[in-house]
């Protein structure tokens, strides 16, 4: 295999849901590559398709979802792969953690049993080895006194501790890629900071790649190298994190940043993006952001925008991008 093959490549991934007679397009032709050891952030509002994209790639969607396009893991297409093959990949090559650890853990089994189960499943270890490995993993995710914690039930642990247990379970298969779907959204601020630091430390220690899905631009900006912004099922901007936050080019990305209040400096009225996200069964014909975009031209409403590479690493789907200077939400520009 040539060395430049990415670990995971999504190519034109599309997901349609049959919603009672009408077709809802949740993911609309997503192209995205994750290299070995990469940390990629995926931001977007609810309904942007950021979670569905990965559920589709891993074959975790219900049967009424129709998935098209490809998701290649080391070149092998997962969309076309049979279920048994996917089962061998999920958890072992690609692991996933979710927002609410308490509902992902089984409340009637002890922590140790759940971690050991994952170790036995993915690594075929015997009981003694699994116990030792479970203790090592709990220690690795920063749980103090792991020997005692193995006998605890999830309800005896805090939300932050339970998320650490989920991360330990995800690490059990020594995955090449960890998909973290809003891993800290249900946690308090000081605990969120702990978990994000832990994920960064683990990534550096193990060399695994990570996809961090979040609605929070701040969370993404501090924890990944590259960011994809999704809107209405499409990636509208992709760039290295520094470039994206220093110089966002898509009006939607600019709007997301302008809508965030700041903790310092003068208080300014927030630039709220007007309107709402389009319904997935009623996507606009042209650019899906055009109806809410202050810079939209007639062509934006009519024709779908192709991706435009501003630099080899910075791509944006906006036909007006070259005509725009600065943020479209800057009041001076809107007034002009």
């Amino acid at each position: 295999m040539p060395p430049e093959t990415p670990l995971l490549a999504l190519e034109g991934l599309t997901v349609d849901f049959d919603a009672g007679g009408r077709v809802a397009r949740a993911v609309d032709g997503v192209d995205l590559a994750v290299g070995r050891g990469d940390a990629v952030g995926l931001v977007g509002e609810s309904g942007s398709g950021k979670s569905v994209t990965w559920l589709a790639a891993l074959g975790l969607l219900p049967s009424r979802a129709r998935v098209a396009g490809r998701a290649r893991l080391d070149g092998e297409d997962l969309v076309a792969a049979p279920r048994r093959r996917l089962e061998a990949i999920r958890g072992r090559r690609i692991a996933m953690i979710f927002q609410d650890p308490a509902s992902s853990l089984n409340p009637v089994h002890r922590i140790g049993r759940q971690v050991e189960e994952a170790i036995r499943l993915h690594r075929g270890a015997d009981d003694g080895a699994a116990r030792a490995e479970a203790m090592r993993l709990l220690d690795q995710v920063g749980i103090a006194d792991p020997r005692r914690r193995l006998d605890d039930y999830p309800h005896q642990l805090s939300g932050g501790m339970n998320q650490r247990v989920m991360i330990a379970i995800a690490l059990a298969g020594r995955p090449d890629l960890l998909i973290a779907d809003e891993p800290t959204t249900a946690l308090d601020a000081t605990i969120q900071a702990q978990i994000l630091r832990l994920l960064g430390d683990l990534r550096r220690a193990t060399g695994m790649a990570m996809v961090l899905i979040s609605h929070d631009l701040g969370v993404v900006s501090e924890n990944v190298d590259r960011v994809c912004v999704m809107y209405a099922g499409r990636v509208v901007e992709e760039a290295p994190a520094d470039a994206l936050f220093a110089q966002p080019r898509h009006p939607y990305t600019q709007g997301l940043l302008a809508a965030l209040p700041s903790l310092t400096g003068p208080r300014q009225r927030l630039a709220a993006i007007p309107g709402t996200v389009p319904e997935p069964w009623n996507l606009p014909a042209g650019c899906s952001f055009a109806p809410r975009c202050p810079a939209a031209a007639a062509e934006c409403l009519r024709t779908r925008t192709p991706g435009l590479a501003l630099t080899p690493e910075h791509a944006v789907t906006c036909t007006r991008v070259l005509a725009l200077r600065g943020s479209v939400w800057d009041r001076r520009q809107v007034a002009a």
Partner: protein
Amino acid sequence: MSDRPPALALLAADGLTRHYRVRRPGAMFGRRDLLRAVDGVSFAIRPGQTLGLVGESGCGKSTTAKLVLGLAPATAGTVSFDGAPLPAIGTAAWRDLRRRMQMVFQDPLGALDRRLAVGWQIMEPLLIHRLAGPRDARERARAVMASVGLQPHHFDRYPHELSGGQRQRVVLARALITEPRLLVCDEPISALDVSIQAQVVNLLLDLQEKLGVSYLFISHDLKVVRQVSHDVAVMYLGRVVEQGEADALFRDPVHPYTRALVAAIPSPALGGERRRERIVLSGDPPNPIAVPAGCAFHPRCPWAVADCKAATPALRPMPDGRLVACHRAEATPESRAA
């Protein structure tokens, strides 16, 4: 503690306390522990101003909101509204006052009746408080809907037909229709998307300017709290640990817990925004049943000394007028990164 709230305050809480007796898990003979949900909280909100209440889950901010509205009885302490003590819960005087103090919750869908058109839900408080007849109520509902940015045709819609942002506008309209002087907002925008949050934050500020309504604004999102608040109180395990003017408090937090909260906000490095200090606290917030002796924050505090374990620090004024409950407020390292 003052014996009278300042004459200017619309709402004043003085030594507000709420303790619960809770059964200790697995304890024999029904032994009960004391959970100090709110433990001596004092603040004042002036007319047309906003007090932001921040802290992590379990710090007592939502219980404080209930105490303020008289939805839960206080174990100790007083609440006064417009200079008069809050009447006893359930009395006619309390019900009458309730239309002057309304509440907005986090989840608009949970706060609305799914089987009733939203227009009816907006006019309902007028009918309940007998403030208007049906015809007049409908007219006033349309007026208040316009003021929160809803269209007349939304009147006959059901909650599920509206977006999250529109639903929160409905909840706001219903709270505002009785012309309250105080809105208690408990995480009013946490369930909304970023772009919609900004719409609702702007709306809250516009309404305050137009109507002169006061807000008690509860949120875990410090940036949003700073955007809407004149003053801020930071709570930790039932007590206020720092309280003061919003801009100063967030620009230069003094209490180690406030500093950790501010440091924990992940923030896109926007043009020139200075990299803030990084404090990652170890450990979880302690169980509110077993609050550590002395300063409740000392087990997680990087600057704790022996004193902090021995004596509970009282809120005391700093030179700039803010209140801080920390023995070491003057001794902790300079917080501003040079």
